[in-house]
């Protein structure tokens, strides 16, 4: 099964996301921001980075890339989409996910090995995890503070759409320690930490990140 990884100008973790897909057993397909064709992929990853430099609001320009119309249409049709870091920001700007990511409350970029608790094991990207499982994967962002109004937060909590929560410390001031969320259908997931950097014990703090990719591969596989 094929998982597309979109490269926007300024995408940085696109190679890493493709590597993670391969290690998880999938076929990674490079997708170009200026293309309006998903080339038959079964799922899409929007990788981390600074699309278009993020000089405006993060993700605000990437949202208008030609490929994004295809991604939005696919997502509305149930195609699994994972937005990591900048990808999460792009999903919020595209209104596929609610809320927004704001400047870290301490005003510094932060890179650390972050402990998370998986809160939802039914989304397209989290079925490989056990409920309440704790994982450690890298986090690195300057604008990772998840914000939404109380009604939205209550709805996310009530509908079980909080995917993962920060443990030990809240690294960026995210409301209710939220590290990731999904849409109503569970096929679109936005995650601030970076699972693609935790897929090899050689280079990552753990291999806990693999679960996100094996989840979607098992789901996409079973639907065929």
């Amino acid at each position: 099964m094929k998982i597309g990884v979109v490269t926007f100008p300024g995408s940085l973790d696109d190679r890493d996301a493709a590597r993670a897909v391969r290690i998880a057993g999938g076929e990674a397909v490079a997708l170009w921001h200026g293309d309006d064709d998903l080339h038959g992929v079964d799922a899409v990853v929007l990788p981390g980075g600074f699309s278009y430099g993020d000089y405006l609001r993060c993700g605000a320009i990437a949202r208008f890339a030609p490929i994004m119309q295809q991604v939005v249409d696919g997502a509305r049709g149930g195609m699994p989409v994972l937005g990591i870091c900048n990808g999460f920001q792009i999903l919020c700007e595209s209104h596929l996910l609610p809320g927004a990511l704001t400047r870290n409350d301490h005003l510094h970029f932060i890179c650390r090995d972050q402990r998370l608790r998986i809160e939802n094991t039914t989304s397209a990207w989290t079925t490989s995890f056990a409920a309440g499982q704790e994982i450690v994967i890298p986090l690195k962002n300057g604008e990772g503070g998840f914000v939404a109004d109380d009604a939205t937060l209550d709805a996310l909590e009530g509908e079980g759409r909080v995917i993962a929560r920060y443990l030990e410390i809240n690294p960026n001031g995210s409301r209710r320690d939220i590290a990731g969320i999904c849409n109503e259908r569970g096929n679109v997931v936005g995650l601030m930490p970076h699972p693609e950097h935790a897929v090899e014990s050689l280079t990552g703090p753990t291999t806990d990140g693999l679960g996100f990719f094996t989840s979607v591969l098992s789901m996409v596989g079973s639907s065929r």
Partner: protein
Amino acid sequence: MTIDTVDRAESSPDVSQPYADLGLKDDEYARIHEILGRRPTSSELAMYSVMWSEHCSYKSSKVHLRLFGEKKPETDALLVGIGENAGVVDIGDGWAVTFKVESHNHPSYVEPYQGAATGIGGIVRDILSMGARPIAVMDPLRFGPLDAPDTARVLPGVVAGIGGYGNCLGLPNIGGEVIFDPSYAGNPLVNALCVGAMRHEDIHLASAKGVGNLVVLYGARTGGDGIGGVSVLASETFDAEGSAKRPSVQVGDPFMEKLLIEATLEVLHAGLVEGIQDLGGAGISCATSELASNGEGGMHVWLDRVLLRDPTLSPEEILMSESQERMCAIVRPDRINDFLARCAKWEVEAVVIGEVTDSGRLTIDWHGERIVDVPPRTVAHEGPVYQRPFARPSSQDALQADGPGRLARPSTPEEIRAAVLALVGSANLASKSWVTSQYDRYVLGNTVLAQPEDSGMVRVDEVTGRGVAVSTDCNGRFAKLDPYAGAQLALAESYRNVSVTGATPLAVTNCLNFGSPEDPGVMWQFAEAVRGLADGCLELGIPVTGGNVSFYNQTGDVAILPTPVVGVLGVIDDVTRRTPMSWRNAGDSIYLLGDTRDEFGGSEWAHLQGHLGGVPPRVDLGQERALSRVLVDGSQSGVIRAAHDVSDGGVAQALVEMALRSGTGADVSIPESIEPFVFCCSESAARAIIVIRPDQESALLALCNDSAVPVMRIGTVTTDAHLTFGSFGFPLDELRRVHESPIPAALAG
């Protein structure tokens, strides 16, 4: 606005020109007259002044730097040597690696964020212009005292600039240094190192070959930033119609640099490029004259074709602009459309500004008028060379005579415990995670080791696991006490830091930060440091591949500590066997390799007592080589499970760092044969702490015996959270608090 053309220069020989304001001496100006047979045009004057500056021409350092070539060790590893944008070394399996460290000291003091950011940008383009994909960066940084008010301005700005630029560029930051000393208070050192990897066949050089080939300028548009002193030439344009005056510190756009990297690698790999050069200091002046000088010797440029951010810029300003994120490529006419199309794919603007000729001249036109007509070698390579006077300062004897012996020494267990704790929590030895957590160390997915490990290590080949390790080091206090030995100690420490990871040291780069070359005492420090480094590299068998000199690092008459930062690069055939800095298994045995002597001159402990005097630790490069052999062989054979360099703060500091990294403690016994304080805190060189499984002792002893490296068992890894030294000890919680709090506490807010 009147343009100063070549015709005008010939017809008006007596025009007074502001050469002195541009930093040219009378005799240098006279030499330009002699070369051209007339007065220079203002554009020519701009070019010569910037290319003959200390920064570009190395006019004070050249005579000394020749030593690196003359004393180059026999090596097959060097594919491209000193003189190109960066040296290139062979790391095996068809892979080549290029690395270099440069300074951006002065801009970073004036404007910390942009100064540091563009320092990263510049060194990354140097690596890119060799044809390599940049794969990692590191930053050796030096500031005034941690508690000095200005440090709270400069340090956070520098760190944010490095992070802001490097993170956005997608390069892992895998190490470096953060050091504090009063001598850097008015002159911080912001050095930046970049390492890049490529296949052998992808190596490119900065030369304009092939008459009729096109000169393409691509990347960011040219603006009025960084033009500094040249504005005196354009003084007639200080009016409402003139260009807006911009700060002389350049402003970086990391997004453009990222696009520039991808576009450049794409055109290089498509075989569309005959020669390539980055634009850094001296901008178009430097790129065109160097490319022409290295190639057919001639080039013609239509300067009015340059894409501008500010249409009112004068030709002199365009020639001098240091706008960032620009590159210059030499492209065959039949390949130009392909080249331009690939730039367009990455949304990078590109324009043909000239062509290669065989005229032997660099000629530049501005709207049809000739404004430059010079032999390019005289601009790029035949600048002035100075034999600056140098002399050992008369104060040097007194400095060396004032040894640390007169300081009151800790002797009871309580006193030694307090001394160790003071070191653990001192600015120089405290945890630097407040700094490094602002850098992305994960991007690209190949980082195997990053700070606080001894070296940064990245995987180059994902299939074979071949990789490189890099470390940068320098103790400026050692260099102050003895510049020759101090440079060798910097080299030795860096060499050791690479070796402890299990990588084999291969090549050296350096960033020589010194005071004013016009001060004979500083020039002596410089000459001695270069001689020490050249001799040291010869003895260790690793060549200098390139580097950078930064002079005039001083406040008033007071120079910084001489700071020859040395970067060593090593190769490891399989990164999965890298040796980490700390233990993991309780019951493992801890050994100290190397001899410990009573050596406190220039040490961290003496520094904490406010003392700098005496002589630095003894240098024994033969012993360093032997130690390296044990560390690398021990890694290859699987005997060594962890290894950590012993340097600043001594054995106790090294053990504390290992315990905090691991989260578990150790029982260490201080040998009877040695004074406890000397064992804990002396900074003797050529030492490392290693960890092995207890049943590997005979294998270790055999390794050490073969290489004649002294070895002593000093302790055992435990399961509890205590680090004990026999009669005294520390809970790890206490060590962690003391080690991790100083820098955040000083920079809070």
